[in-house]
């Protein structure tokens, strides 16, 4: 077993019950255990009500587990002397439709709100603010624009920048591309991937798009009914596409292509989860016949 001390996050047999001892009692998380290493890019998928949102709110201490423990950098976050406030600056959470939380008069003021509240020196505040705006790829012409005048995709970038300005070590995003058009979606995911690589931060991406997780993440966790069903590379997970379908999920469209061709007897090995992979596999299958 790997040394747990080296793990950034350890979730240890966590269960959570909503409305305990009421008529609406429901087990939202059921004995969840997993570990996260620094710098991983993790996808989290599951149908509505599978427990994804409940789980990520545990990771920065917004919800206290009914049972089990969570460790951040080796320390139990439920310890009395552990500062949850500090944890929340380390584990940044971007909620669904984060642009609904924008409230300041300018982009700079909105992004700078977090650092200001941390009571950092003025210069550090500004540095973090402008860095965060740059990281999400917003042009400097928008510094003084009202967040309300921006497009949907731009607003969302401002909201993400607001969390990045807190310099989190873990960035959790709950469906950051919901409601965006394909270009806005690609731009946001490309920036997140770039930030993950360049800043070395851990990213947990909650998504409904199998195509997106297949393209970006290196580890995929699948939740169903409050439990973790799969935790592996996207390729290994999508190989179980028939089980995923039973959970109301699916595999990327190209996975169905290569699986279908395999069934028809074409010499295709392995499983494709992206267009690029499928292309290579089909080209090599066609060559074998020449």
């Amino acid at each position, binding site marked *: 077993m790997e040394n747990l001390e080296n793990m950034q996050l350890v979730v240890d047999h966590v269960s959570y019950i909503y409305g305990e001892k009421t008529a609406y009692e429901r087990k939202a998380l059921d004995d969840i255990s997993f570990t996260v290493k620094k710098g991983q890019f993790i996808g989290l998928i599951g149908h509505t009500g599978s427990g994804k949102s409940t789980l990520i709110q545990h990771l920065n201490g917004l919800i206290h587990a009914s049972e089990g423990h969570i460790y951040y950098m080796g320390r139990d976050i439920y310890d009395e002397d552990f500062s949850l406030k500090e944890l929340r600056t380390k584990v940044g959470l971007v909620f669904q439709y984060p642009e609904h939380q924008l409230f300041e008069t300018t982009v700079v003021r909105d992004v700078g709100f977090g650092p200001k509240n941390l009571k950092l020196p003025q210069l550090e505040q500004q540095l973090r603010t402008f860095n965060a705006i740059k990281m999400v790829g917003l042009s400097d012409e928008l510094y003084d624009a009202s967040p309300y005048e921006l497009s949907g995709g731009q607003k969302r970038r401002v909201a993400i920048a607001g969390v990045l300005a807190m310099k989190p070590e873990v960035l959790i995003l709950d469906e950051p591309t919901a409601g965006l058009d394909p270009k806005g979606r690609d731009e946001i995911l490309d920036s997140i991937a770039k930030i993950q690589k360049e800043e070395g931060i851990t990213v947990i991406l909650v998504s409904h798009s199998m195509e997106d997780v297949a393209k970006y993440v290196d580890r995929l966790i699948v939740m169903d009914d409050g439990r973790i069903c799969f935790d592996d590379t996207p390729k290994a997970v999508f190989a179980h596409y028939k089980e995923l379908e039973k959970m109301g999920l699916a595999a990327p469209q190209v996975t169905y292509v290569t699986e279908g061709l395999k069934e028809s007897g*074409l010499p295709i090995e392995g499983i494709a989860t992206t267009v690029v992979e499928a292309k290579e596999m089909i080209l090599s299958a066609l060559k074998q016949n020449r």
Partner: protein
Amino acid sequence: MEMIKANNLAFEYIRRDDDGNVEGITRALDGVSLTVEEGDFVAILGHNGSGKSTVAKEINAILSPTEGTLFVDGMDTRDADKIWNIRQSAGMVFQNPDNQIIASVVEEDVAFGPENLGVPTEDIWKRVEESLKAVGMLKFRFHSPNKLSGGQKQRIAIAGIMAMKPKCIVLDEPTAMLDPEGRKEVIRTLHELNKKEKVTVLLITHYMDEVVGADKVIVMDDGKIVMQGSPKQVFSRVEEMKAHALDVPQVTELAYELRKEGIPLPKDIITVEEFNAAIEKIYRQG
């Protein structure tokens, strides 16, 4: 018969400062001409800010044309006396199901529309039953909408519109907030309503795979209609779609990439079945 007929439709959003002076004008629609025949299933694609939601609001007479004309079921949307008739003919479903559900019991929520139209009580219950059946939600009739999934809530919202017996339903990104299963449920329901109840459907969406089953696809950019045709015709123009900040289904893109490598695949592939049949044929021929 023409359900929707827009002729050179334009709409301008005017921004004003505190004193009411004009600060800027945004031309959200610019010379849009389109025809939707009764019984059609039409999809509108376009990136954020391309003007597609403005079209929906025009059809529902929430906005009035700045220039040009728009007729819905033969009624001019500029005619203030016709507004309620227009809204009854063309019902609208929005993105967030939680903003559209108002009652605490499913059947009461569905009854809200016809009740406001002054439909006799007995008739209301008949309509409620029929519409819930049409969207496959009859067994949830006495449930609380709060406990339903996003896809189920959206089907309730659609049933609420159906109970007003519209000829046309306009849906503005109805699946944007749903998971894959919920999205499928809603799209399947729309196709069933279109086939069985002969309702004209105008679906505004960002998801390319939802468009595949439509009779006609309209692509908007910068307030104008830039492409239109069958899904096959539109998606076969991969580069053009990308230039309008849109996507094509993954199989269409895969076929496009393979064609660049010299594999003789047809241009109009939009489903996995079509793609695989074409590849197999090439493979068998060696």
